[in-house]
């Protein structure tokens, strides 16, 4: 279900009303969140709910074992019931609908039986491991299982395909390897990372595990942020499920604004810029042409700039709507974007862009690798490795790997040159120069990110640096870009001016009325011009 769809317009108010009717009954509210989140996700594809249920049961039990908490038989049976219901509800109907016993049906059955056995016998099995190793073994197992599921669904074909290509290049023959038709489950990268952060935090004794599978299930599948983040941390979000929610009118007002502004960014800015971006990139997406873009280098450059704003508007829109919906339900999700395009250096950028992922990578990858504690060489290696894996997290494509490599490279270069805090303390013109320069570097990264193949990157670079000229198309594209990004720039200027992301309270009620009118009418007009709501870019990751 998309936030910008009619279905969600009916879904959310219904859940919201029911949720506050249950106010004072925390367990019932959590159960409602769990059920509505599964409904929300199942609207896209019911089968993959089983994967979420599997991760939920596995990590829920693993965390308790890591903490050495006594897991009662009643709790274990609840877990077995949870996964059995998930199998019966989400996998079985699909298997029987097709008339034959499908591979999914068999694999699901095996997984259900194995997981149930593991849950029931878990405490016994753990007791057979030497005590000093118990916690380490369990947390390693959860990391391996989570990454295996993620790797299989997201990267299996990518690695097989790459291996085939390499084999063909080296030996001149194509190896016979079975390719599986695997559908990428929406949001798998987000909820897998969220689940891993929980077990690791419990392992690090930074938080307590929860004894309630409903609580953990609701935390992991919380619908506002389930499919595209922010990637929450157990220690931030889970305690919010463990205390009573209190209606707060100010928070609700801010939540409504976040939803409206998010929808505006998605429907008005991102979806319209995507037309411009696709008109230039689209011809190269299938890799069928090597001709330079006919509109000249300026048009190519404008398309890259447009993509920079498209992806920002699109992704931050999702985060804003997620945070807004959560606020209306009494939750506070982490801030995912902090005006990333005013960053003056790469470190600054990663503290502003997709903060929930970059901080995840910092806390669970960069720092465990040694961070900056083991000398310069190791620091650079760790930075590069973290960014490479961050790139690969986005998808199974070499362009994402290259993007990660590029991000690692500029992080390392800035450090090598001793300018890793460049522009941080500058003001006025100098600050503007730093911001503009770093924006160019960011856009080069976005060119790599948007290109569907490596050839496109070289063609576009050749167009920008070797065929830089104006054209009628370039001038039209320029005006289109300006006409859609000015509201974004204006709001960001106000956010900087007022040092607050929520600027509405600073204005008179009459100005507020007009801002709301403008926003809502724009959403209405541009949404009605679309044949169907467009997906968010980060759904693909």
């Amino acid at each position: 279900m998309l936030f910008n769809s009619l279905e969600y317009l009916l879904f959310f108010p219904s859940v919201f009303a029911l949720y506050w009717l249950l106010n004072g009954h925390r367990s019932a509210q959590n159960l409602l969140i769990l059920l509505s989140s599964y409904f929300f996700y199942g609207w896209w594809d019911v089968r993959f709910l089983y994967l979420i249920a599997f991760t939920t049961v596995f990590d829920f039990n693993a965390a308790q074992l890591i903490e050495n908490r006594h897991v009662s038989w009643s709790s274990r049976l609840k877990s077995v019931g949870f996964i059995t219901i998930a199998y019966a509800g989400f996998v079985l109907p699909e298997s029987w609908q097709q008339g034959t016993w499908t591979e999914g049906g068999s694999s699901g059955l095996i997984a259900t039986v194995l997981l149930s056995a593991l849950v029931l016998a878990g405490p016994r099995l753990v007791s057979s491991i030497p005590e000093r190793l118990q916690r380490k073994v369990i947390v390693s197992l959860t990391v391996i299982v989570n990454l295996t599921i993620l790797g299989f669904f997201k990267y299996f074909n990518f690695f097989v395909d790459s291996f085939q290509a390499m084999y063909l290049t080296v030996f001149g023959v194509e190896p016979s390897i079975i390719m599986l038709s695997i559908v990428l489950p929406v949001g798998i990268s987000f909820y897998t990372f969220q689940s891993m952060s929980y077990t690791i935090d419990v392992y690090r004794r930074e938080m307590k595990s929860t004894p309630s599978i409903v609580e953990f299930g609701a935390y992991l599948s919380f619908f506002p942020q389930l499919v595209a983040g922010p990637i929450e941390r157990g220690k931030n979000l889970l305690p919010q499920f463990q205390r009573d929610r209190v209606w707060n009118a100010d928070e609700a007002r801010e939540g409504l604004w976040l939803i409206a502004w998010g929808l505006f960014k998605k429907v008005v800015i991102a979806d319209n810029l995507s037309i411009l971006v696709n008109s230039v990139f689209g011809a190269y997406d299938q890799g069928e042409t090597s001709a330079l873009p006919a509109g000249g280098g300026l048009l190519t450059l404008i398309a890259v700039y447009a993509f920079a704003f498209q992806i920002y508007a699109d992704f931050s829109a999702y985060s804003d709507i997620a945070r807004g919906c959560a606020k209306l339900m009494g939750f506070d999700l982490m801030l995912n974007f902090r005006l990333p395009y005013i960053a003056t250096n790469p470190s600054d950028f990663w503290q502003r862009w997709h903060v929930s992922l970059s901080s995840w990578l910092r806390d669970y990858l960069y720092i465990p690798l040694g961070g900056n504690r083991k000398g310069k060489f190791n620091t650079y290696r760790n930075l590069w490795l973290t960014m490479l894996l961050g790139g690969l997290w986005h998808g199974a494509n070499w362009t994402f790997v290259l993007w990660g490599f590029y991000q690692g490279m500029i992080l390392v270069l800035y450090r090598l040159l001793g300018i890793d805090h460049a522009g941080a303390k500058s003001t006025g013109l100098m600050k503007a120069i730093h911001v503009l320069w770093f924006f160019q570097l960011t856009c080069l990264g976005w060119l790599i990110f948007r290109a569907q193949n490596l050839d496109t990157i070289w063609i576009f670079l050749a167009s920008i640096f070797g065929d830089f000229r104006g054209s009628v198309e370039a001038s039209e594209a320029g005006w289109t870009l300006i006409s859609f990004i000015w509201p974004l720039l204006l709001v960001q200027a106000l956010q900087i001016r007022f040092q607050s992301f929520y600027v509405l309270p600073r204005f008179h009620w009459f100005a507020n009325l007009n801002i709301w009118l403008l926003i809502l009418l724009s959403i209405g007009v541009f949404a009605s011009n679309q044949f169907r709501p467009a997906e968010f870019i980060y759904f693909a990751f």
Partner: protein
Amino acid sequence: MPSRLLRYWWALPFLVLYVLLASEAYIRVVQPTKIQPRYVVGAEYGVRMNKPLMTYYHTGQHYRIRFDINSKGIRADREIPYDKPASTYRIVAFGDSFGMGYEVELGDAWLSVLERELNKSGQCNVEVVNLSVSGHGTAEELVTYLNEGYKYEPDLVLVEWHQTDLDDNLRSRLFALGDGVLDKANDTYLPPIENAALLESPVYRLIAENSMFYAWARQSLSTRVQRLMAATANKDLEQSQATVTDQSARGALSIALLDRFASEAQQRGADFYALDVPWWVDRVTFTSSFPEVPSLATKVYSPIEDFALRRGEEMYWEDGFGHFTPLGNNIVGLGLSKQILPLCSQSESAKDSGP
């Protein structure tokens, strides 16, 4: 806080008025919308008809078109009795907004051109009775013919086909295919239409004929609702038509409707002819969506070839609702007259008329 707000209750009407005026201004600047009020009511035979005795205007950037609807719900500048005048070849036409001549003056509409051209030929004395209603599909047209159209004693039944009919026919749920046989499924199809009294209210007419915001909101809403209804009906039909394998279920329903229409006309002694309004891609690319109806293979006129001869000229309003321009109407009317002239000149009615 609420009690403080309640003290300002008297400001509410002003606030509402301000919001409406600001919305109107926004739409006029950002999304200028053509104002195209549609006055349709439910006919006693269960489908929509034009509200009789109405005069109203459609306003676009470059035109202001007057619509006069006579006492029988026909866009015409005169009353038309059921009884056919002697020595007259009568064509009764059914269609949607293309048939009604949206976005052009009555005299420029293709049915007016057709009537004029046939009469100019000197081979027949023709009268066209236009029972088109904006939004109609073949199903509603067939019901209109069976209840109202036949009363005009047509010599020729002329049905205008448009791609939207595929969905309109499903959405109406007036007919259904049971084991490949067309059955009447419901007696009425009256999608949300304004109350007749409302249509006469001066305030409503002031808004409907002058407000771009109202026009935009109405169009957006009706488009969404129509898509939803068509999608639901299509799904139901596909589920009930597991045996339809060679073409989509919605195509099968339209084929059956056109076939039934032709046979009903023939049973009453009338010829049958169809106009296939092409789908417009750009000024040189037009596609046909007319379903393959074996019994009508030689009784369909598509203007695609005639449009192709006028490469690059504007056949459909590009900045409007995409109906025919006066040029498009003229080409369709002329082309159709060439097809119908042999039918009309050989008919008994034409022979009565003499040279």
